[in-house]
């Protein structure tokens, strides 16, 4: 996803000299082409994310489309007030982009686990929040947030994830993409959990359980119609995210369901509990620990379907 984002941004920046990329001293071996070929549109703000964010807002107020970029906690939590006051309150055309969503950098420790930032960003007035699922969505999302005037947050994974989508997609901000359909269950996934959602749906299909799979790449504005349709048309809904079950996709969907008077649907948030992962490990290992791998999600979905 990182490569898909940077390649797309490079193309967009080549076509529009007002597109600016500010990195918080991150991106060794992947940002050099941008820096060398578009030096007037490249800034390294150093290890100073508060300044990076205000700087971006200042440049945006002069007419630029400005990206800030670092590992997930740094351009979001470290400088939250700059994002809120300088970017959002001024409706500045700043796109905050984070690599390392969820447990991407699992072995680096809790400081680098990004498991709250989607919820935090979602609360900010005027902020569009996007978490693409694979390189195909990352490319489309990058174009979409540049086309959208105003503050955006985009959470990426790392480099080298496989594509989940089989071919071209119709990507629109705020519009979920349906990958599978079925009447027994809807799996709503955001970010890099989509591959697991599809795999779980395929396992269920083998047993005759039909699951709809939605890629909810945009957390805000949420595709409320897709959530309500799932509540009407399928018997259960599970949300899937590599994020705290508080504040992220699960919360967003729960809010819609709670305010839909006709929604009679079993519901479960599958995500990370509100606790630090004190033991480190690879993303794969941490997914197992949190039952976010395929068997773990499958087991959680089974309990939901059994009504337990």
């Amino acid at each position, binding site marked *: 996803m990182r490569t898909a984002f940077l390649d797309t941004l490079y193309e967009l920046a080549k076509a529009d000299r007002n597109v600016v990329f500010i990195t918080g001293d991150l991106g060794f071996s992947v940002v050099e082409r941008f820096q060398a070929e578009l030096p*007037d549109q490249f800034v390294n703000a150093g290890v100073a994310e508060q300044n990076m964010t*205000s*700087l971006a807002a200042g440049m945006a107020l002069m007419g630029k489309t400005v990206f800030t970029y670092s590992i997930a906690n740094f351009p979001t939590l470290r400088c939250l007030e700059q994002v809120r006051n300088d970017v959002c309150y001024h409706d500045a055309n700043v796109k905050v982009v984070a690599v390392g969503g969820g447990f991407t950098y699992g072995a680096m420790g809790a400081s680098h686990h990004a498991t709250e930032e989607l919820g935090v960003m979602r609360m900010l007035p005027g902020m569009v929040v996007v978490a693409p699922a694979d390189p195909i969505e990352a490319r489309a999302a990058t174009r979409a947030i540049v086309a959208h005037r105003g503050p955006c947050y985009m959470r990426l994974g790392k480099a080298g994830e496989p594509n989940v989508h089989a071919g071209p997609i119709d990507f629109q901000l705020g519009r979920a993409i349906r990958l599978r359909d079925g009447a027994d269950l809807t799996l709503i996934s955001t970010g890099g959990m989509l591959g697991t959602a599809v795999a779980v749906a395929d396992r269920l299909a083998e047993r005759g359980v039909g699951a709809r799979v939605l890629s909810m790449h945009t957390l805000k504005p949420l595709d409320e119609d897709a959530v309500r349709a799932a509540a009407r048309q399928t018997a259960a809904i599970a949300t899937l995210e590599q994020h705290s079950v508080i504040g992220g996709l699960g919360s967003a969907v729960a809010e819609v369901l709670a305010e839909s008077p006709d929604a009679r649907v079993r519901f479960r948030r599958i995500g990370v509990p509100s606790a630090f992962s004190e033991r480190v490990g690879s993303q794969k290992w941490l997914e197992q620990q949190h039952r976010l791998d395929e068997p773990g999600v499958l087991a959680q979905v089974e309990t939901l379907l059994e009504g337990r």
Partner: protein
Amino acid sequence: MNAIPKVAVELDERSRHLRRRIVRVLEGGGRGHLGTSLSLVEILRVLFDSVLRYDPKNPKWPERDRFILSKGHGCAALYAVLAECGYFPVERLDTFYQDGSPLAGHATHKDMPGVEVSTGSLGHGLALATGMALASRRDGGAHRFWAMVSDGECDEGSTWEAALFAPQHELDNLAVIVDYNKIQSLGRVEEVIDLEPLAEKWRAFGWGVREIDGHDLAAIEAAYAGVPFVEGRPSCIVAHTVKGKGVSYMEDKLLYHYRAPRGEDLEKALAELETAR
């Protein structure tokens, strides 16, 4: 610290007039930061009277210079100066701090022509101005960018992040003015977090620095005319000021960081500001 020649500065009628306005703005609001709004009157008025290029009838004129009041709590002075400059009717000042008014107790840009950005949380303004200056420089713009910070604001790490960044990019289209009135929220700056040697700090960060008496109009004009002090570097003006300047019993008093004038206080302040002393 370099010794600043203490000039016995007598406030002229315009300075006293602006202060009367500020006192009335705060009185009308019943709240606000008085002392901090009185210390910056001269550095602000000279900027708007003879340095900045702007058009109050076209506040978003793209070629305008930008002024950012990073110490947003001093906004009563900014509002008064903007009204005087023709950005909006002076009657609007009466709505300060009132229900439904855009005139917040910290500088706000919403429905407030002339206010470039909203501030109030300290440590944002210099970085915002730096971003603007960088964008202009990269586009070959001729704008100049001025940010005013408080001394207390120099406690904020983000102020120094921007201070590190601007010289790296040789932003000599950027200047910061430190309203060094020596008093912050809970006490004297030297007792809370001593900033000295303040000018040396900015110099060490790569800025061209000048120290002036921030109430001396001639010194302020000369300093502004000298910007950039060093070609290829941003400029810092350490303006030594007096909190509550212009009202004898408020001068250099912590109490008047917060207090809005009322009753006898108000009468005395206005009386003092009527006549030169």
